[in-house]
C-alpha cells in the first residue's frame, strides 16, 4: 500500500509540475478536481433540463424524440445531448482522479475520514443516475443495460427474481417503465446535491467553482468535442433481437461485461467488497496522528484568528471558561485537527522575541512547540559557516527543505508553511540570525493543508493578521511554491536569492561608506 501510494504521489507530482507550467498553478486542473466535478455536474443539469423539454416517455416515442433532438435540431438539441453525455463522463473521470489523488496524498485518513466516507454514496448515486439515463434512450445499448441490470438485481434473493421478466419480449413492456426511469434519473441527481453538501461539511471555505480560465477551457473543450463527435443512439431497441454488439460507455458501464464473463453473483461480491474496502480504507491502517493543537488559556485572548484560519473547522470559539476578562476562548476538536499548525501561525501571541517569560503561545502543537521551533532556528542559524546566510522554512509536503541545507543554508521543516508566524521572519532578520529568509511549500493553489500557502502570503503581504511588521525588509525574503519534485527550481531560486542578498550587502556597504565619507 505504501509503495503504491508513493508511486502514485510521485506520478501526480510530476504531472502537477508540468501542469503548473502549462496552466499556471492557479489554473492547474489537478488542483481543482472537486470544483471541476461540480462544473461537469452543472453542465449535466443544464443540458438535462433542455433535453427533458423535448423528451417523450413511451416505448417508441422515447427513441423517436431523442433522434429528433439529435438530428433535427443538431445545432442545439444535438449539442445539448452531447454535452449531457460527455459532461457525465467527465464527472466520473474527475471523481476517479480526485479519489486517486486524495488517496496518494494520504488525505483520506485521520480527521479526513468523513469526507472520504461520504464520497462513497456520491459515487453510487452518480452511477445510478448515469445508468438510468442510458435506459431512457431505449436503443440497443439501453436494452442491453436494462436486461443485464435487472438480471443482476434478480440475483438477490430478496428481489424475487422477476424484474428481468419485464424484458422477455415486447408484449411485457409498457410506457410506465419510462416514467419510473425518468423519475429516477431526475430524483437521484437532485438528492446528490444534498449528499454533496454533507460531503463538504468538514471542509471550510470549499471551492465550488473552478477558476474562470479553467472553467472556460473545459466548457470550450466539451463544446468542440460535442460538435466533432456528437453523441448518437445505437439502433432502436427490439426485445425480439439480442443486442449482440454494443458500444459501451466505459466510464459508466465497465462492470457489465463482467456479468457475462464472471456471473451476477461475482459482480455483487465485487461491488460489496469494493464498497467495504472503500469504507474501511481510512483505517487500513489508521493514520498515526500527531497530537492535536493545544490551547493555553493563560495566553489565549479569544481573538478568533485561529478559528478563522483553520482549514478543517477544528477550532470553535466558546464562552470563556476561566475568569480572565475575555469573551471567548478557542477550543480544539481533537478528532478534526490534523496538526498542521496553521493556528499557531495565526496566533498573535506566537512571538519568538519573548524571553522574559517562557515562550508559550495561546495555541501550540505539542509535537513541535513554538519554543522548540525557535531553539531549532537559533541552533541551525548559529551553525552557518558561509554567507550570505539563509534560513529556509519549508513545508513537509513540498520539496524537502533538508535537501537545500548547506554551509550557508539552514533548513527548518514545518508540518505546513502556514505554521510559521510572520514574527519569526522578523526575528531571524532583526536578530541577525541570517541575511535572508526563504519560505517554501506546496505549489500555490494546492497547499496540502488547503490554506497554508494562501495565509502565509497574505500575512507576508500584510493583508491578513498576524501581519509582517513594516520594519522587515521584504527584499530579504524569498518565497517559492512548487510541486514536491521541483528540487532543481529550489536550488536555482536559492542561488538567485543568495546573489540578490550579496548585491544588497554590497549596496548597503557602499551606502554606509558614503554616509561615513559625508
Amino acid at each position, binding site marked *: 500500500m505504501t509503495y503504491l501510494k508513493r508511486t502514485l504521489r510521485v506520478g501526480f507530482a510530476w504531472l502537477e509540475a508540468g501542469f503548473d507550467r502549462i496552466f499556471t498553478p492557479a489554473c492547474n486542473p489537478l488542483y481543482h478536481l472537486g470544483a471541476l466535478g461540480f462544473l461537469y455536474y452543472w453542465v449535466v443539469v443544464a443540458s438535462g433540463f433542455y433535453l427533458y423539454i423535448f423528451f417523450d416517455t413511451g416505448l417508441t416515442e422515447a427513441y423517436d424524440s431523442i433522434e429528433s433532438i439529435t438530428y433535427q435540431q443538431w445545432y442545439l438539441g444535438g449539442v445539448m445531448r452531447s454535452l449531457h453525455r*460527455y459532461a457525465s*463522463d467527465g464527472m466520473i473521470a474527475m471523481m476517479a482522479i480526485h479519489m486517486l489523488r486524495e488517496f496518494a496524498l494520504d488525505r483520506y485518513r485521520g480527521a479526513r475520514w468523513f469526507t472520504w466516507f461520504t464520497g462513497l454514496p456520491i459515487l453510487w448515486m452518480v452511477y445510478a443516475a448515469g445508468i438510468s439515463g442510458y435506459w431512457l434512450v431505449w436503443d440497443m445499448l439501453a436494452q*442491453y443495460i436494462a436486461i443485464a441490470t435487472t438480471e443482476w438485481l434478480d440475483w438477490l434473493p430478496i428481489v424475487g427474481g422477476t424484474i428481468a421478466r419485464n424484458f*422477455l419480449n415486447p408484449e411485457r413492456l409498457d410506457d410506465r417503465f419510462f416514467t419510473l426511469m425518468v423519475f429516477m434519473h431526475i430524483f437521484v441527481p437532485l438528492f446528490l446535491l444534498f449528499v454533496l453538501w454533507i460531503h463538504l461539511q468538514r471542509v471550510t471555505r470549499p471551492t465550488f467553482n473552478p477558476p474562470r480560465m479553467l472553467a472556460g*477551457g473545459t466548457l470550450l473543450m466539451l463544446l468542440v468535442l460535442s460538435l466533432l463527435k456528437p453523441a448518437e443512439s445505437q439502433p432502436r431497441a427490439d426485445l425480439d433481437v439480442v443486442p449482440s454488439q454494443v458500444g459501451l460507455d466505459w466510464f459508466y458501464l465497465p462492470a457489465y461485461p463482467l456479468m457475462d464473463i464472471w456471473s451476477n453473483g461475482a459482480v455483487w461480491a465485487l461491488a460489496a467488497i469494493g464498497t467495504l474496502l472503500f469504507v474501511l480504507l481510512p483505517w487500513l491502517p489508521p493514520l498515526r496522528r500527531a497530537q492535536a493543537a493545544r490551547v493555553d488559556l493563560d495566553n489565549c485572548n479569544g481573538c478568533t484568528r485561529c478559528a478563522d484560519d483553520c482549514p478543517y473547522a477544528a477550532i470553535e470559539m466558546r464562552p470563556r471558561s476561566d475568569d480572565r476578562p475575555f469573551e471567548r476562548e478557542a477550543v480544539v476538536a481533537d478528532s478534526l485537527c490534523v496538526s498542521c499548525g496553521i493556528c499557531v501561525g495565526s496566533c498573535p501571541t506566537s512571538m519568538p522575541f519573548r524571553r522574559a517569560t517562557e515562550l508559550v503561545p495561546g495555541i501550540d502543537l505539542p509535537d513541535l512547540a513554538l519554543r522548540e521551533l525557535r531553539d531549532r532556528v537559533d541552533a541551525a542559524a548559529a551553525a552557518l559557516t558561509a554567507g550570505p546566510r539563509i534560513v529556509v522554512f519549508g513545508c513537509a509536503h513540498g520539496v524537502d527543505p533538508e535537501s537545500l541545507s548547506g554551509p550557508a543554508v539552514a533548513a527548518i521543516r514545518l508540518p505546513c508553511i502556514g505554521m510559521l508566524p510572520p514574527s519569526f521572519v522578523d526575528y531571524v532578520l532583526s536578530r541577525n540570525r541570517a541575511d535572508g529568509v526563504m519560505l517554501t511549500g506546496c505549489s500555490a493553489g494546492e497547499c496540502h493543508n488547503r490554506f497554508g500557502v494562501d495565509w502565509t502570503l497574505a500575512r507576508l503581504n500584510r493583508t491578513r493578521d498576524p501581519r509582517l511588521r513594516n520594519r522587515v525588509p521584504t527584499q530579504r525574503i524569498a518565497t517559492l511554491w512548487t510541486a514536491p519534485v521541483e528540487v532543481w527550481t529550489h536550488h536555482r531560486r536559492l542561488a538567485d536569492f543568495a546573489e540578490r542578498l550579496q548585491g544588497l550587502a554590497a549596496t548597503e556597504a557602499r551606502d554606509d561608506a558614503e554616509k561615513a565619507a559625508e
Partner: protein
Amino acid sequence: MSKLLMLVGQVIVYGGIAMWLGYFANSPVYTHLSPDKALIKLSIVHTAQRKGECRRRTAEELAAMPPNMRTPLDCPRERLPVLIEILLDGETIYRESLVAAGLAHGGKTRAYARFPVSAGEHMLVARMVDSARSVGYDYEHSARITLSPRENFVIDFRAETGGFRFVEPPDDA
C-alpha cells in the same frame, strides 16, 4: 514558459482529455453475444403443487375457529420442488430442481436462464415436474425451431394455458 507554449500545451491537454472522453464514451465495442448466435431464454414463475395432501376440517374444528378463518380445507404450506429440463437436439442443456420461494417454501418457484446457441434449426424440448410423481412429466412441450442470428427465443410457462410456451419473434422481426 512563453504564453504561446502555454497555449499549445493547454490545447494538447484539453485535446487529450477530449479524446479520452470521446473515445471511451462508446468504444471499444463490446460483444455481448456473437452475431451468428441466437439466445434461448428460459423464464418461469410457477406455483408448484403442495407437498402434502389437504385435509377437510371437521365440524368441531371449524366451530372452534374464528368465523372469518373457517376455511374447510387445511392445507400444508410447503410446496414441492419443481424439476425443469431443457433439451436441445437431444442434449440436456438445463436440469434443475428448484425450491419454492419463502422461508416455508410456500411461494412461487422461479427459473431464469440464458442459453446462447448457434443459429439454425434445432429440436427443443421443455419438461417440468411440479408434483410428487417419480415417473414421467407433468408438462412437456417440444418443437422443431429455426433460430435466426441474434434471435431472442423465449421459453415461457403458463399453467393455466397448458404449460410451456415457446415464444418466437414475429417473422418480420
